[in-house]
Structures are given as C-alpha cells and as structure tokens.
C-alpha cells in the first residue's frame, strides 16, 4: 500500500496548481522566516523582561541575607558594589544562636523535616492501597464511592479545621500525655496531630490521581499474576507499586512541597511551640512581630526556601509531570 501513497499535501494547504505551489510555498516561508525573526526578537525581549522581573525579588532577598545587619538596614542591596561586605553571621544567628530573642530556626527546621517526611509517606501508602482497591477489586458501589472521594476535594480545608481540632483534643491529647508519661524523651506535644491532619487532607487528590494511573496497568498483567496464585497484597507490592512508581514519585514531590510550605494546618494543629511548629509558622510570626529585623527575615526566609528549591531544581521533570497530572488541586 505504501507504494501508491504520494506525499499528500495537508488539507488546508491543498491547492490545484501543484507545480507553482512549491515555489509559492518557498517564497512564503522565506518571508515568514524574516517576519518570524522580527517577532521573535520582540518576544525575546518581552520574555527577558518578564524573567528578570520574576527573579529580582528573590535575588535581592538572597543577596541581602549575606550582607551585614548594619548595611541591610541602611542601604539597598542594589548598592552592593558601593557598599560591599558579606557575612554568614545572619545565618549563624537565625539557625544556631541560643539567645532568647533569636529566631532559633534550627529546631524549627528539624520540625519541618519531621513533619514533611511522614506526612508524605503516610498518605501515599494509604492512597495507593485505596486506589488499588478502586481499580482492581470489584465491589458494589465502587464507582459511586470513587466519585464521592473525588468530590471531597472541593471541601476547603478551612471547613474541616475546627471540628477536627476538637476531635483531636478529646481523643488524641490524653493518648499523647500517656506516651509522654511512659517515654519522657517524647514531649507531650508531638507531631501526631499534624501528621494525621496532612494525611487526611491529601487523601482525596492522591487517591484520584493514583487511581488514574493504577487503573491503566494492562489487565493481562494483573490477571496473569492472579492465575499464578498471587494474593492481593503480593499483587500490590510486587506488581502495582513498582509499575506506579513514576506517578507516586511525582505526587510525593508535590505532597512534600505542599506540607513543607503549609502554614494553615501548622497554625491550627501544631500548638506553636519549638517542639512541633514548622519553619513557616515561625517565619510568619517573625514577620509579624519583628518585621524590621531584615537581617533575620532574609536569612530565615532562605533557610525555609532552600529545601524546596533543592527539591525543585533536582526533580523538576517529575514536578512538572505531577503538575500536569494534578492540576486540579487548589
């Protein structure tokens, strides 16, 4: 068949006079190329301007965080060549200084990590199990229940905060106190509430996205394993999880960044002490109470940005993929 097929002109380009067509086309593209070069020059300038505007605020903050306190307070960062001077004192002060007025971000940094890592793992495991059940275990109301879970995404978490907090206070608080009594090194305020809250709020979207991915695994693969006598948990761990790993990875990046950057859930459930509260909460507090301490705010902001930026720049490809798949999360 391929022998008879002439290179068909595209539907829109089909013109009766075939021989002149090519000449005209060549002319057009030449003119087009010139025009394109002109438009692309304006486009390049416009995109350069946008890129610069978008980068300058962050750059100014980064530069300032390395300038001595005296210079930050009296001169703009753009005068850095007239007023040179670089120091790491700001970072030393915000991270390690133990004076009571210092931000002491070191322990909040640890808190951010201690909150984010489990709060990424828990919902992902639970959601992939549920997604597997929705995709590969047949049961009554499966479809309806799945739509219901999907619909839960539209409940703003603001609606869930107060009742959830009340429940935690009555149910979890006594348990935490008992744990503290038994193992004194674990403080009364633990990460438990924040972990659970983040896990719950992540579940609807995670189930939805992972289901989309897991349900597209070819059914032959699943059936073959079933015939070989694999149980559901074997299927899940040995076939579904490895195959769904790319989707799980990109959602994991998302969930990690979302938890790391969260303020609202932390404000409500962390209690605000250095035992539990994450960086964002401490920084918001500093920005409100000590809004003039720019040597601390600039360095502190960058301490909080450094982990997301590393995650972002090293895993950008997965991040974009997750974004395109999950562009429904608010």
């Amino acid at each position, binding site marked *: 068949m391929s022998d008879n097929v002439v290179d068909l002109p595209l539907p829109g380009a089909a013109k009766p006079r075939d021989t002149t067509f090519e000449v005209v086309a060549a002319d057009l593209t030449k003119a087009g190329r010139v025009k394109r070069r002109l438009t692309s020059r304006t486009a390049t300038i*416009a995109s350069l301007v946008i890129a610069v505007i978008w980068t300058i605020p*962050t750059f100014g903050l980064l530069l300032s965080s390395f300038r001595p306190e005296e210079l930050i307070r009296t001169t703009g960062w753009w005068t850095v060549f007239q007023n040179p001077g670089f120091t790491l004192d700001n970072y030393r002060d915000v991270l390690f200084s133990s004076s009571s007025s210092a931000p002491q971000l070191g322990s909040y940094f*640890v808190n951010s990590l*201690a909150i984010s890592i489990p709060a990424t793992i828990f919902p992902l495991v639970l959601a992939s199990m549920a997604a597997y059940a929705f995709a590969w275990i047949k049961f009554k109301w499966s479809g309806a229940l799945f739509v219901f879970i999907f619909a839960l995404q539209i409940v703003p978490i603001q609606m869930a905060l107060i009742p959830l907090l009340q*429940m935690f206070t009555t149910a979890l608080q006594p348990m935490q106190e008992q744990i503290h009594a038994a193992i004194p090194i674990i403080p009364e305020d633990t990460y438990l509430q924040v972990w659970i809250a983040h896990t719950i709020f992540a579940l609807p979207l995670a189930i939805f996205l992972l289901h989309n991915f897991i349900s597209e695994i070819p059914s032959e693969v699943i059936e073959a394993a079933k015939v070989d006598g694999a149980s559901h948990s074997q299927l899940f761990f040995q076939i579904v999880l490895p195959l769904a790993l790319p989707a799980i990875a990109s959602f994991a990046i998302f969930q990690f960044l979302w938890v790391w*950057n969260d303020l609202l859930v932390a404000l409500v459930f962390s209690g605000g002490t250095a035992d539990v509260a994450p960086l964002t909460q401490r920084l918001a507090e500093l920005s409100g109470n000590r809004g003039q301490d720019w040597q601390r705010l600039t360095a502190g902001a960058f301490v909080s940005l450094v982990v997301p930026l590393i995650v972002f720049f090293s895993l950008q490809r997965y991040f974009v993929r997750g974004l395109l798949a999950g562009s429904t999360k608010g």
Partner: protein
Amino acid sequence: MTTSDLIGKIIQVLVGLAAFAAVLGLVLFFIDRAPKKGRDVIQLVAFLLPAMILVAIGLVYPAIRTTITAFGDKAGNFIGLDNFVWMFTQPEALVTLRNTVIWVVLVPLVSTIVGLAYAVFIDKSRGERIYKALVFMPLAISFVGAGIIWKFVYEYRPAERDQIGLLNQILVWFGQEPVLWLQTEPINTLLLIVVLIWVETGFAMVVLSASIKGVPIEQLEAAELDGTNAWQRFRNVTLPSIRGGLVVVVTTITIATLKVFDIVRTMTGGNFNTSVVANEMYTQAFRAVQPGRGAALALILFVLVLPIVIYNVRVMRQQKEIR
C-alpha cells in the same frame, strides 16, 4: 535546641514510621491468610478502609459539623442566618468580601495572560528550560517565603534616608516621595495580589506551555501558507486547541485564590483593610472565638468554589466524549 531534643524528635519520627509500617504489615500479613470464604471482602476492607475512615472523620464529618456551626452562636445555640447577616452587613466583613472578589478577578486573569504570553514567547527558543525555571521557581516557595520576599520589595524608609525596598527606590529614582505601601489603601490589596500573581504565573506557564506543544504543527503550517500573521495564527489555531489547558489553569488558580491565606497573614495580618475570606475565617474562628462566624465564612468559601468545580467536571466530561 539541645541534643536530647533532637534525639527525641528523631525517635518520634522513627517510632511513627515504624508503627505505621508495623500496623500495615500485620494487616496485609493476616489478610493473605484469611479464611477462603470471606477473603475477598476482608481484602477489600483492608485496602480501602484505612483511607475511608480517615476521610470520613477528617473531612466528611467536619464539613457537616461546620455547616451546622455556621447557623449557631458562640455557645452553639441555633440563631438561623445571623452569621450570614453579619457577613453581608458589617462594614469590616463587607470589605473582606470585596477584597476577595478583587483577588478572584485579578489573579487568574493576569497570571493566565502573562503565563500564556510567556509560554508563547519562549516556545522553542534558545534556553527555554532556563526561562521556564526562572518563572516557575516561585511555585516551589512557600507563600510565607513569598510574603517575606515581597515585603522586602515594598519596604519603606522616610524620604530623607536611603531606601532599602526596591519599589520605593524606583519611585525615588523618578523623583517621587516614597510610600508606605502596605498601609496605604487601596493599593495595598493590589500589592498583595501581585505576590500571588508572581507565584501562579509559573503554574499557568507550565501547563499552557505543555498544551501549546500539543497544538498540531500541520495546522499551524497550513495557516501560515494561507498567509496569516502570527497573531491570527495564535488567535485562530493555537487558542482554540489549548482551551482545555486554559480551563484547568483558570479554575485551579481561581480556587487557590479563594483559599489564599498565608500571604495576607504574613504581609499585613489582614490589617489596613486587606483581609480576605480565608484569613477572616481563621481570625474569627481561632482569634476572636466566634466559631459560628468562622464556619459561615468557610461555608461561603465552599459555595464559591462549588460552581467552578462543577463547570470543570463538565468540561472534562465533554472532552472525554469528544475523544
């Protein structure tokens, strides 16, 4: 932070992860050995129930409770629509609603347009990846971090001293007096909006850039042969074929804007008439101890989000049918 604190925290995390793994492992171990008769049901329950219980106690029940709370006073007595009357009559609450409307109109509009223009400009250009990363970066930053970054840009110093905020310095370069940006109405709300636009443009750009790359190249070439100019091609070929991406972008940004909280909290705390619904909800419920009013505001948020989501779902369905 002392070393024992740090050890305590690490132990906490490890204990948490270990407990989680142990419970799951036990459950999965036992369902594989469940009696043949009810095995299917038991397995289903084991896989599905943990997530379902969490969602039920953490989202479904609270949402219902909040809806009821919205119709009660401080003590929980039923007071009908009083909280909503408060919301739509008191000047300070009305300012909040007005601000939210301004946010919801401006943020999706501007960030989608800028994001789309940028995505078109840099499409297939040299250094596209770097261009993308620069505008995209704010998306990885927390709103709190973004708030501090921009507060620094808006920082004010009296005219006789050197400015340290970039925006006022630009004014000074043009011979103007510096302005106390965040205290000056109504410009302060607009300046807070700039922060969210700065964040969301990257999102719009990435999604739309992916849709632009999906526009059939044949159609674009055909249109070019027909003698159309770049703008006509964009208007008549590109724009219709990225409609799906546009809907996703606009709805997602709109919902994110409705829920915006951190930026307002960090930059002004909602003072100087900059509050929005999500921030006011927090203030009323957790600072002013007015759970009824807080719940009513949360409910309003839900009602505002609802039509957007319904529209989104309908567009998604239509597209599935076309395919």
